């Protein structure tokens, strides 16, 4: 489903060209889960951005469902992302002026789905926030905010979910609960999951792991659990 072929990423700084990623090759099948791990600054989030079509590699190709997204322009990539891709972020990225329900409904409304609010309400119930739909992000704890973000990501029924350090801002206990929820929903929806983390336990729950060090692919471990 996702084919990554020898991608690299360089950026130009005042001190010369900097290699952020190099020679990454990867293939992720439908329904698989992949953890990208590595120390800070190893290029995990950059790779995630490229896989999701948010960023472009300096060389190499990325194909989703057989379509080479590196050959597309931004509009083409946006069209591919629409309805296919969901995101969960470390800092939740909920819109502060919207209630939990509206935050979840917004991407559905943008897609023109008719019963956006009803769908959003169902997903909030699934993440255990059925009673908090009218609450604003500032009235929710960090864990609750990330649950809203999970509901928002899954409500669009994406084929692929990208998660960037989904528990990075949460304490261990809360993080565990979020992880459980993430994997439960993933299993129920049959979503392909690609997540970035530096937590070994979270990575261990994924079907495969890709470890990066200084932008280089150290190893890709096959199904270990």
């Amino acid at each position, binding site marked *: 489903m996702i084919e990554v072929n020898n991608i690299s990423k360089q950026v130009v700084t005042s001190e010369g060209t900097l290699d952020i990623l190099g020679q990454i090759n990867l293939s992720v099948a439908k329904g698989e889960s992949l953890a990208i791990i590595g120390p800070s600054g190893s290029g995990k*989030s950059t790779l*995630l*951005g490229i896989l*999701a079509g*948010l*960023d472009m590699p300096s060389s190499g190709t990325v194909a989703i469902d057989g379509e080479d997204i590196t050959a597309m322009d*931004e*509009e083409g990539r*946006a*069209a*591919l*992302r*629409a*309805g*296919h*891709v969901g*995101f969960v*972020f470390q800092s939740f*990225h909920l*819109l*502060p*002026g*919207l209630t939990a329900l*509206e935050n979840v409904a917004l*991407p559905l*409304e*943008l897609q023109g789905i008719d019963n956006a609010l009803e769908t959003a309400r169902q997903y909030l119930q699934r993440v255990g926030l059925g009673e908090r739909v009218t609450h604003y992000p*500032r009235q929710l704890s960090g864990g609750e905010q990330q649950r809203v973000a999970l509901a928002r990501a899954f409500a*669009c029924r994406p084929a692929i979910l990208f998660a*960037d350090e989904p528990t990075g801002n949460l304490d261990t206990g809360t993080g565990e609960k979020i992880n459980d929820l993430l994997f439960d929903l993933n299993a129920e929806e049959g979503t392909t999951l690609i997540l970035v983390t530096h937590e070994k336990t979270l990575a261990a729950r994924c079907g495969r792991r890709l470890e990066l060090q200084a932008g280089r692919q150290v190893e890709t471990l096959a199904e270990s659990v």
Partner: protein
Amino acid sequence: MLAVKMLLRSWRGGQLGLIFSSLVLAVAVVTSVALLAERVERALIKESSSFLAADLVVSSSVPIDPIWLERARQMGVRTAQKASFSSMTFAGDEEMHLASIKAVESSYPLRGAVKRSTVPFATDELDIEVVESGPQPGELWVDSRLLPLLNIELGDTIDVGDGSFNVSHILIEEPDSGSSFSAFGARILMNWSDLPASGVIQPGSRVSYRFLIASSEGQEDNFDAYVDWLKQQLDVHDRLITPDEAQASIASTMDKGRRFLLLAGSIGVVLAGIALALASHHFANGQLLQVALFKSWGISANRVRKLYFQQIILLGIAGSVVGLLIGWGFHQLLISVVRDWLPITLPAAGSRPWITGFATGILCLLGFTLPALWHLPAQSPLAVLRRDTQAKSLNSLVRGSLGVLAVAVLLFWYSGNLYLSMAILLGFAITAGASIGVGLVLLRLGKSYGHWMGSIWRLALSNLWRRKKPSLVQMVGFSGAIALLMIMLVVRTSLVDEWRWQLADDAPNHFLINVAAYELDGVKTLVNERELETAGWYSMVRGRITHLNNQPPTEIAKNGHESLRRELNLSWTTDLPEGNKIIQGQWWGSENADNNSNNLAPVSLEEELLHELGLTLGDTIRFSVGGLTFDAVITSTRSLNWDSMTPNFYFLFPEGYLEDYPRTHMTSLYIPAAEKLLVNDLLRSYPTVQVIELDKIIDRIRTIVSQVTRGLEMMTLMILGCGILVMFAAVSLSMTERLQESAVLRTLGSSRRLILGVQWVEFTTLGMMAGLLAGLGAEFAVAMLQRFMFSLPFSWHPWLWIAGPLGGGLLVGLLGVVYSRRAVTQPPLRVLNSL
């Protein structure tokens, strides 16, 4: 519609409050001023019509052509004829008086009304009756003073020419009574149909005819067509008089008031524009994450652009509609304050003010909000992962230019006045330029030397330097707002000062003219006995023009201009009288007054008269004074200040040319209502003295001025509101960052005093710098406005340079502290969570 949903959610989230209120205020200011200005203007035209007693008047030295009357009748145009002349009136065998008589048709007046009474010198409204037509045949309505002059009572009969008439009423005021120095004697109104029987008008009689016309209800088009036709018929005998010319002195006050309203409105628009620009900038920053999310969800840039554009249009429509309503309400409030301006009801406004208001809303959004949001569709979706990949906002030069363009279009369209638009734009540009240039230097100096002033100052001044970009943007906002408010206050103060003399209770309200030398002492004694003070006595000589450039004026020229037919008042002076301004040529100094070899007297002419007589500088005029003639050469022309209640002369000579001719004297003085009968006593003892009564006109000006002033005060308050809004917008710009920093400092144990102290010092410093720079821009703009728009003399305003920094520092400091108080009154975590 998703855009509506998004808009409502943003509204609920409080992100749109400032944009919306700036927009509403811009529209409300423009609408209220435009509505008021248009309604007052329409009323003025109507009111001026009543001063003319008609919509339009043709003044002629020959009787009105019957064809004009016939054509008017066919086209449904209302008409009235009037003849003015001087004629001797007799009561019994002994008493007589040369009266100024107006014979009017029964349809007179076509506009306005005549005030009459049965009580001589009536001032009490209860004694005065307002009627819509003149006297019946056989009746005369006469000036109060004719009664003592002819020693008669109401109901007595007097003779005019061959006819005998019943003096039935006292004539208090007719719409077109005027206040001309050429109106001789007591006024009498008689019926037109009595003219033939009285035989007062003979071939060769000096008669001024007036043909009054007015539109019939609903037949304005016919009227316009008739006027077009009539204009073709006019020849050298005829002159068209429009309502504008009818009441120059009041019109001038009203015009300045109107210009001030325009100025205040324009400043309001610019202020609201700045507030809108700042608020939009703030709003756009808050939208970056949302747009990045949208794009990560696969929403195309085009769709994002469309969504925001739809929101702007919706916001524009909603804001404009609310603004129109508030503007309408405010204009009603203004009208309730100035209702006494005009005794007539204000006519309804046309559609223009509404269109202007609505267009202001849309234009403001296009000029200020759209550019601020322009970069949003270009926001990279990667920003959801990396905060440092924000879209670059539109180049600030481009954004600034678009804003300036919008303001320029608005200003010019709105005021229709290039000088006003330029003055405000340049004043603001200078302030903004200085804010950026000088502001940067001041901030740098503050940072360098702040460490000498303790920890609060050191921290505050280095914060300002660290945040120099937003600091400068804020400074432009603050200084712009302060400068515009200063401009408005200074112009308002100058206008009110200029009008103050008119408001003075003892401004001269009567002129005594034609006082003969042998009467002078007696008249002075009479005035002194009443403990009244004159504005000084002026000498004058009455003479006629017999030749222009050594040629006698043709009959056509004589018919064409009154000055060639009647006696003129010639006076002399060494110094240019106050309120006079030399337009062409040179005023004589004391040394060169008699320095010409041709033995020609130098004469200075009123500028318009020079053109009307077809003369130029260096031409000669021969005057005849009591049968003696002398030649004069035109050495200069002057403009006169008709607002002033001091004597104005069309012809002025240097000393040494007229003193040997028989001279008369004149003065102006204030006669209180209680002493009004002085006029009576004076005229009884000195029947040849002419008294011009301006008390009613002055009362009227005084009322108008005080009402206009009150209107200006209200407008000033509203604009101050706009200014405060700009300050709010500017303060809120950096507030998120400030609150964040303060919360962190608070978490680290900093005291309330330190945190608020830092905010106070930062904002006060910004406010003081802005106030100082605003003084610069305001001084420039005021100089321009005074020179070109209000014809006021230039003056420095040192208080601007003191009040600016002090007021700016205090106001901005207070606003900043009030805004950032949250940082110390709430737990730091809650503050951080709410950002």
